[in-house]
């Protein structure tokens, strides 16, 4: 069976579609934390959807970059969910959200230094050990950079993958947002990431803030992100791709049309032509 290639995020607005119709996707991705609950309808729905589709677990609260380490209770809850769902991937972000009892519930930026690399790799090792599987780590979008950084984000990703054994979830929109906000070349970024580590790609939209682009996931994938995706596919080859929409959720048909656009760019037969 070929690897699942094109998927959508499973969101509440589309539960009925996924339960009652044969939605033409190769996989779905869910926000892990929404299902790390004791029971009830969300878990029941996830079990039903899993009977039809492979499921990727995408987290937002592991806080891989926390200087005071990972939350073991969180990891064990995630492991229990992963063991039940047998996911296609388990992923989270190269960011931090929690420190000494404070939890921001946001994906906060990290300085790219040797100290951070040591810490992130140690945390990934703990997570992979508890989960019993390799993780994917997603490049973040960011609004702040640190003068003390000693390497670029893509250099950091390369070193992180090599040392920790994790894979990459490459978010093309995040690259575009950060490149615009911080003035680097997004094509150079894509050309430098370790292509053999990229297991999944995210496509999403963003909004123009007063001073910067904001990673809102409330818009269709815009033309510059499609162009970057097309470039990325020339390097990465066929890779699992999903449309990530988290707000202003449109009817499912709109997202399937976007997914068709991704297929037109990233399908193996198209790429071979």
């Amino acid at each position: 069976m070929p690897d699942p290639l094109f998927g959508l995020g499973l969101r509440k607005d589309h539960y009925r579609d996924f339960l009652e119709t044969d939605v033409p996707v190769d996989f779905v991705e869910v926000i892990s934390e929404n299902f790390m609950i004791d029971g009830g309808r969300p878990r029941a729905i996830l079990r039903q959807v899993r009977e039809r589709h492979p499921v990727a677990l995408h987290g937002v609260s592991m806080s891989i970059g926390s200087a005071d380490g990972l939350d073991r209770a969180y990891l064990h809850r995630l492991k229990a969910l992963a063991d039940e769902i047998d996911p296609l991937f388990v992923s989270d972000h190269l960011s931090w959200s929690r420190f000494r009892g404070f939890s921001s519930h946001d994906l906060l930026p990290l300085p790219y230094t040797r100290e951070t690399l040591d810490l992130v790799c140690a945390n990934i090792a703990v997570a992979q050990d508890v989960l019993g599987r390799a993780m994917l780590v997603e490049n973040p979008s960011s609004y702040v950079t640190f003068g003390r950084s000693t390497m670029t984000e893509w250099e950091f990703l390369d070193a992180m993958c090599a040392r920790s054994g994790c894979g990459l979830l490459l978010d093309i929109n995040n690259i575009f947002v950060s490149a615009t906000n911080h003035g680097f070349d997004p094509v150079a970024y894509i050309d430098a990431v370790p292509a053999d580590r990229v297991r999944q790609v995210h496509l999403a939209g963003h909004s123009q803030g007063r001073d910067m682009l904001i990673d809102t996931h409330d818009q269709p994938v815009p033309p510059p992100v499609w162009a970057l995706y097309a470039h990325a596919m020339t390097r990465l080859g066929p890779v699992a791709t999903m449309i990530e929409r988290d707000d202003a959720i449109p009817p499912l048909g709109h997202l399937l049309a976007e997914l068709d656009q991704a297929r037109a760019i990233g399908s193996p037969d198209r790429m071979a032509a």
Partner: protein
Amino acid sequence: MSLALIQQDFCAWLARSDADAAGRIGKGAGRGLAIYQNNYRAQLVACLTEAYERVHAWIGEDAFLAAAAAHIDATPPTHWTLDAYPAGFVATLAALYPDDPDIGELAWLDQALAQAFVAADADPVGLDGLGAVDWDEAVLRFSPSLLARDIRTNAAAIWSALSESGTPPAAALLDEPATLLVWRLDHVSCFRTADRREARLLDAARAGERFGALCALFADELGVEDSATEAGRLLGQWLADGLIVRVDGGRSIR
């Protein structure tokens, strides 16, 4: 500056708008830090607004946002899941509105229904097999979703009217204090009020008292026979509500 110190400063900026901490994070970081702080506060406000839909409708947008801002300033989130954050808002509202107990009770109901929605699964017992139970020794086990709270106001009626887009009644004290019961049945959270007698029996039952003893709970008040009849009637109500998920003692029934 270590990563721990950077993260400490970031937290101070987000939670307390500590300008000195922001300055230490980096030159020229101000615009980006403002975005992170806006995201932080906007997400928590949205979380509280979604969790307390009826309270929001009951006290109005301005009062709700003021209460949310006070809560966010006083109570930064600590749990890994955002779903845990709304729970503390019940106490904040009760403190902000000490003369309006309907608001705190309405908030508790919003929150309890959300908690019941994702509580552990457990199927209610059916009627099959109950005839074989040794009821004197039987111990009732209740749904893990069951939550109870004493109330003084008509918050339940207000909640229902707001949920049905009807005109809510004016806040009023109940003639008799009551207990609000919240639980989940067939993936749907539900609630009803219980009178003082039912609440007393339920407390004893949830504490693990044998049904034989429950039958005698109201003997002083009603007499032995009517006390047992009342306990039996309430047992029937709990079974019909789907509140009981196991009957232990002698022979367990699931």
